[in-house]
């Protein structure tokens, strides 16, 4: 049995044991997160560190007498040992329930059905991966992370609900350098294709060659700017910081309060939605609830929906939409427009071509104002021609301006920005994002 098969067998056995151990009046929800991952860190096209991680963690939510205990603990994949751990932590959860006050917004568990999806990938073997990555990058100063292996998310509850989602996947998230100038590339999927990776690298090398000119330093000010999908993806990452959370709206911390209250609008050219049809992440959340296949968030510049967890729905007496407890997007898509790739530089005319942005944060949350830096392949363009790479610039700009009246056009193509986060463990997911042409994008430093 491989990792995915043995983990499934062990999870089913331990989950069934735990759910059968519940006493009258107790309900429980279980979540498994497991991975078997190879991480290779590169610098200067050489291996800096290689780490293999095999880990499994089980989450237990226990409801008893109107109280809620929430625990998670490492498990081993060895059924008998894991049953012992489950017994121990179930007892701890009962103690928690005895000590804590009643939870007025407790969500009654339900049976939200069954799903079972396992995607088998074609990944590089340990014997071939070092050569497969470094050989086509020979002569380049490559830095980055290769990450590959099995990744699993599963859920069961005491109402009979059962969900399983597993895949074998990889990403190679890298940068190529020419001194201090750099370009960014990412190659991700479930089946490694050496020719595709070589082509991805070749494209990055070509882009890097464009940067072999002296940097242009621009003074602060407002510039016409094209934000490539990678740069828009960074802007969109701020939507994960509470902007779309209904709970955040009610508690006064959502950057979209003025959009929700109709004091501000965004451009009719701007629409975004949750879209699980992209297949980047499982549709069930940590309560095993199924999110709608698609959910409009902003439609033609107007707020269509906040993300509302069932817990928030109960607290505020509204209808939820199966958002997870963080009420952040899990499968975000910004819808395309009409600007064709071939017309981007011509429509930009004179201004900035920005491939990527970096280190964003709210500078004025109530006005959806964001600061951050340009990063990687960013160019000065004159009369539709790339003239020179630019020295990094700091921007400070409100989404109500740049995605509002200053949004000139949205590209007719989108790119997938795969989730490459590996904090504590690998993550599923990603975004699908177009490029955008924006006038008067404000730079301050």
């Amino acid at each position, binding site marked *: 049995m491989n990792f995915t098969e043995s983990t499934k067998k062990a999870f089913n056995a331990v989950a069934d044991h735990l759910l059968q151990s519940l006493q009258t009046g107790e309900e429980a929800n279980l979540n498994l997160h497991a991975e078997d991952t190879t991480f290779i*860190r590169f610098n200067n096209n050489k291996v800096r560190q290689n780490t293999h991680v095999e880990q499994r963690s089980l989450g237990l939510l226990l409801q008893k007498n109107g109280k809620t205990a929430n625990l998670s*603990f490492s498990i081993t994949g060895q059924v008998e040992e894991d049953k012992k751990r489950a017994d121990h932590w179930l007892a701890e959860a009962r103690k928690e329930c005895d000590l804590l*006050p009643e939870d007025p*917004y407790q969500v009654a568990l339900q049976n939200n059905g069954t799903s079972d999806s396992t995607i088998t990938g074609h990944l590089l073997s340990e014997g071939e991966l*070092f050569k497969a990555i470094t050989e086509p990058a020979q002569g380049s100063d490559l830095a980055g992370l290769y990450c590959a292996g099995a990744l699993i998310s599963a859920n069961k509850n005491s109402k009979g609900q059962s969900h399983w989602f597993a895949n074998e996947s990889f990403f190679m998230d890298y940068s190529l350098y020419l001194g201090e100038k750099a370009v960014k590339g990412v190659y991700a999927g479930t089946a490694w294709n050496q020719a595709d990776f070589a082509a991805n690298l070749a494209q990055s090398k070509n882009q890097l060659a464009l940067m072999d000119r002296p940097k242009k330093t621009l003074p602060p000010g407002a510039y016409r700017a094209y934000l490539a999908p990678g740069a828009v993806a960074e802007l969109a990452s701020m939507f994960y910081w509470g902007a779309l959370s209904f709970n955040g709206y009610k508690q006064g911390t959502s950057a979209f309060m003025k959009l929700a209250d109709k004091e501000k609008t965004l451009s009719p050219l701007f629409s975004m939605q949750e879209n699980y049809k992209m297949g980047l992440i499982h549709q069930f959340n940590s309560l095993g609830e199924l999110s709608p296949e698609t959910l409009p968030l902003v439609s033609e510049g107007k707020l269509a929906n906040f993300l509302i967890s069932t817990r928030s729905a109960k607290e505020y007496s509204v209808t939820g939409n199966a958002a997870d407890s963080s009420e952040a997007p899990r499968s975000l898509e910004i819808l395309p427009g009409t600007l064709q790739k071939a017309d981007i530089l011509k429509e930009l005319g004179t201004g900035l071509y920005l491939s990527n942005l970096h*280190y964003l944060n709210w500078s*004025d949350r109530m006005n959806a104002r964001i600061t951050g830096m340009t990063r990687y392949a960013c160019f000065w363009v004159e009369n539709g021609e790339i003239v020179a790479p630019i020295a*990094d610039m700091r921007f400070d700009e409100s989404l109500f301006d740049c995605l509002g009246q200053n949004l000139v056009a949205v590209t007719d193509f989108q790119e997938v920005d795969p989730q490459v986060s*590996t904090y504590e463990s690998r993550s599923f997911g990603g975004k699908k994002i177009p490029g955008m042409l924006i006038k008067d994008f404000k730079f301050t430093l």
Partner: protein
Amino acid sequence: MNLTGSLNLNLHKTLSSFQDSVDWAQLRHVSEKTTYRTVRDEKPDRNHISFDHGIMVEVLVNGHFGYAGTSDLSDSGVKRAFSKAVAMAKQASSFKVHDFSVLQRPMAKGHYHSPVTRPMDSISAKEISDIFVDATRAMKVSDKIVSRSATAMIVETEFFSVSTSGSDVHQKFSIVSTDFSATAGANGDTQTRSDSGGLARCLQVGAEVFDRASILERSKKLAEESVELLSAENCPETAMNLLIAPDQMTLQVHESIGHPLEYDRILGDERNYAGWSFVKPDDFGKLRYGSNLMNVTFDPTIPDALASYAFDDSGNPAKKEFLIKDGLLVRGLGGLESQARLDLPGVANTRSSSWNRAPIDRMANINLEPGTSKLSEMIASTERGVFMMANKSWSIDDYRNKFQFGCEYAKLIENGKLTKTLKNPNYRGTTVNFWNSLKAVSENRETYGSPYCGKGEPNQVIRVGHTTPYCLFSNIEVFGA
């Protein structure tokens, strides 16, 4: 289940079965219990306990370190991890970035325990919950308050490590991070005040930190300040003197000193993720980083600071070192591997977030040494300026040069006195220019930190501490919303 888990691991015995097949090996066993307690608007909001438990096998083969971590602590699980680590280290050694040796893994023997006055198991979930319910009740100072919360993150960690070079280390940490915050709203504006900025109030302590009277007093005051901010003027947009409190200096030191001095950033390891540094290897001993009032240390010996420890993950004993002396850059933040690669002296900061990550260069406790000024004198000496407190926004570039930071609360200084309250205070600048504009440093210091410093590929969140005085800077660009 205690922190070491239910399995009876014998690290020495397991290690002895491995040592003949590699040049060097280490087993690092980590167990960590993290408890979150949050009360919002007097009701339980988040009560979560996580127990993370695993082992990292580290080997040296053909001059290259290889790592394999597993949560399967059975004999077969640890042996499987060892085989993985060896096989991958052998494969990777033909592509290695540097030829390492056992010199980068000295023998270490000893133990470390956080200084705890009152053990965490002496306070119950109910007691914490009751204090927090009262804290959020104390924040109900106005009908303009729209949200009130009280949070604690309690972390109990044990590290055991043994190595074939004879190391045997046990380190045990007790960490409590707290935050109390209130959000006020009126006329389309909302303002939040927290207890020194997010979870900046984080220390190696015990249950003594849950002091009811102090928590209630602080909670009431910050709620009052959130309401006060609603009617405050915006911070002006101009260049002026800037006085910064320790709960914002923490962030300033972290971003514009700590990160740029990390050797792995200077070496380029981190370029693809968080970036690299404006500091070059030749700058050590030559670069005037700041005014001659600037003295910065790496100090893992401050008793309650978040990143105090006895040994780093390579076995290097931790001790205080000056990084910047009288404004001159003298030393960087690199562990033994980076020191070998750069041929520069460093510090004991080879650290990993847990058993499932390989250690990298991390800043630990980075502190600004005290000056000779009194805070009252610093205010009195300022004809016109802004006094900013508590971080709420941070952003700095790849090279740790162009920064922009925002605070929760500010006071205008006019003719040597604190006058109007200002909202939405922000400032921006470039690192070396900024530190060279330092013109006064207070004699008293406060200790804060962050439990959430992100870095590395694969990503790692680690704990950092910062002990800093109040600092006065001249001619800084400030602005409001």
